[in-house]
């Protein structure tokens, strides 16, 4: 007997869970398929959760979600080989509830989220891979899984299968990913006693710190490093564009190993018990790389649709937001008795365009190109900034004016005056 659902959601990450939760809550018959052993089993550890996006799906999530620490301090480091120049923002405002950002462990968080989805009434099947979309002409009518008797039908299939959606590629909705549009990131978790974490960062019991890093740690490649504090562990990682890894013939693992020996980073993680690496792709092509996101009988959400704001390291919130808007679209069409046609589903695109998601991605649409063609942002500048700081902070009998002159000379020497002005202009335009 064929199984038929109102909606099938492929994937149980933040995007799929948001969509499945809202659809099930609205009373639709929902099937969710996840290829991992359980939701979260395939997901990288340690991340930042942005409350707002989740609040709009599960308003009272703070009651039982596995949250590690709320963020009270953000640091930005520009690193040279031996040093870094940084800025810090810490505010007592961040200690007022409701908190805006948290650190989470994705494996636990995804499990919690999935429990909510199942409690809302969606049927979850794990350890099952969707291998194909079932088509009737141009219309998606269901899915085929890698098991005997694996055809399942639905009015709408929501592709929430993450970056590098093989399904979308197979169905021809999506071209092959361009290595310059994806970053490869590695993370690891270092377990430390709770008190040690708090002492090292000068934070209280539930407070957390985020450190973003750019500079020599990426060895000239376009990318960033990051470090978050969890309850009893520290997440550390680095990511660079896949195209750069290919060019430089380095591996992300080697990069992370090198990064951990940096004199500013080493003492922070010293003595931690390391849990293994996890490597994952991040779609960072931005606005210009967004594929077709809906058609007859299907919608695409989250990483599958390239919804990542690389500049601000936001991903899961875009995933949850797109999942929510997809669900709202489907619910609205159902209620109006309308079919899941491409024309009707265009409502999803409208909702996205109206939201912060598309607005932010549009704002930074030129960022990837600028950074790709201007590697000095990751090499020359960090070095110069660090040298400048070092010079100014070394008291050696040289007057400050001469020091300034030397610093200016260094900048112009490494990069022409026009180059400097051009870079400033490019960045300003990109952030404008």
């Amino acid at each position, binding site marked *: 007997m064929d199984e038929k659902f109102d909606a099938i959601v492929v994937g149980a990450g933040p995007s799929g869970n948001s969509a499945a939760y809202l659809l099930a809550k609205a009373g639709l018959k929902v099937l969710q398929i996840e290829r991992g052993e359980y939701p979260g089993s395939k997901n990288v550890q340690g991340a930042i959760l942005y409350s707002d996006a989740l609040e709009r799906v599960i308003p009272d999530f703070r009651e039982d979600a596995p949250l590690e620490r709320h963020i009270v301090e953000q640091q930005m480091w520009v690193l040279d080989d031996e040093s870094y120049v940084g800025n810090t923002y810490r505010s007592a405002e961040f200690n007022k509830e409701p908190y805006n950002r948290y650190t989470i462990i994705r494996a636990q968080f995804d499990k919690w989220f999935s429990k909510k989805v199942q409690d809302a009434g969606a049927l979850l099947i794990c350890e*099952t891979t969707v291998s194909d979309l079932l088509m009737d002409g141009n219309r998606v009518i269901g899915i085929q899984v890698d*098991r*005997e*008797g694996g055809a*399942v039908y639905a009015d709408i299939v929501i592709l929430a299968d993450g970056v590098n959606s093989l399904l979308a590629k197979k169905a021809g909705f999506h071209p092959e990913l361009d290595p310059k549009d994806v970053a490869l990131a590695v993370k690891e978790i270092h*377990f430390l006693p709770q008190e040690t974490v708090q002492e090292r960062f000068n934070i209280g019991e539930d407070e957390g710190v985020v450190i973003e890093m750019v500079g020599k740690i990426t060895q000239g490649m376009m990318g960033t490093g990051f470090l978050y504090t969890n309850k009893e562990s520290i997440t550390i990682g680095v990511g660079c564009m896949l195209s750069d890894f290919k060019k430089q013939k380095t591996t992300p693992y080697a990069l992370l190993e090198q990064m951990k020996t940096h004199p500013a980073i080493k003492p922070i993680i010293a003595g931690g018990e390391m849990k293994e690496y996890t490597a994952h792709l991040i779609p960072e092509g931005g606005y210009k790389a967004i594929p077709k996101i809906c058609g007859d009988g299907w919608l695409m959400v989250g990483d599958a649709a390239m919804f990542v704001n690389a500049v601000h390291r936001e991903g899961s919130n875009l995933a949850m937001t797109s999942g929510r808007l997809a669900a709202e679209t489907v619910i609205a069409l159902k209620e109006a008795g309308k079919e899941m046609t491409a024309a009707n589903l265009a409502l999803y695109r409208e909702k996205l365009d109206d939201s912060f998601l598309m607005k932010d991605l549009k704002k930074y649409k030129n960022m990837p190109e600028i950074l790709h063609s201007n590697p000095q942002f990751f090499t020359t500048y960090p070095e110069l900034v660090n040298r400048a700081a070092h010079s100014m902070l070394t008291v050696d009998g040289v007057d400050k004016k001469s020091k300034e002159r030397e610093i200016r000379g260094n900048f112009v020497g490494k990069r022409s005056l026009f180059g400097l002005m051009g870079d400033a202009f490019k960045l300003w335009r990109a952030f404008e």
Partner: protein
Amino acid sequence: MHIVVCIKQVPDSAQIRVHPVTNTIMRQGVPAIVNPYDLYSLEEALRIKDQYGGRVTVLSMGPPQAETALRKAISFGADDAILVTDRAFAGSDTLATSYALASAIRQIEKDIPVDMVFAGKQTIDGDTAQVGPGIAKRLDMLLLTYVSKIRDIDLENKTITVERRAEGGVQVLKTKLPCLVTVLEGTNEMRFATMTNMFRAARHPLKVWDKEKAGIEDVTKIGLKGSPTIVSKVFAPTPKSVRAEIIDTESNQPKDLAVTLLAKLFTKKPDLAKDIAKNAS
């Protein structure tokens, strides 16, 4: 043919690490799995069902999370699942565990008579291999351990013929039903669940039994009270300090290498020459 298969949920030992410095077990995020040995007995039971017809009921005692293990068994084709869970069972050793499981099996029998009980050879966490035999004794069932193959079941005469791995060979044993079988690893390979069974597993209403429903008569025989075993210490054995040695000779000819190696062996074990001489005579 009604077979009850006992399964235990265990931490995936492949993912447990012992901290090199503190020697403590790093439990963080270790996923729970069905005891791998139990999958062989489940698959064997399912094959019997496929061949002779009947019913497979899976039974587990454990915390509420053990539900996942039972659902998994249903996805492979088990017909029904019972989770025996109650705070009163906490801290059970093999004696208390087999008491509780035997009592639950008696309750199952009240609905449908049980022809066979299957258990794994042992678990990967407790490793005692005592629970199967413990259940058999309590239910007064004949016991077949280390079964590597089920040759035949005679439905009419209610007998079973199996191959049993024994020291120095394989025994072929025939016995009357009901009996308890513990299945050796490598006996078979677990099937890949069909989508129909995946749906059934996701929707199946599990039976959850507390100590009353499991028919526990004597509460002093379960949980910590019923468990005379005391784990006084858990530790990781210290790794051997002996190091591999690289032998290098000037010529690097096989003959020279062999001579150097032998010389080393004889210096390390002074009695070796004597022993060889003794054995040779």
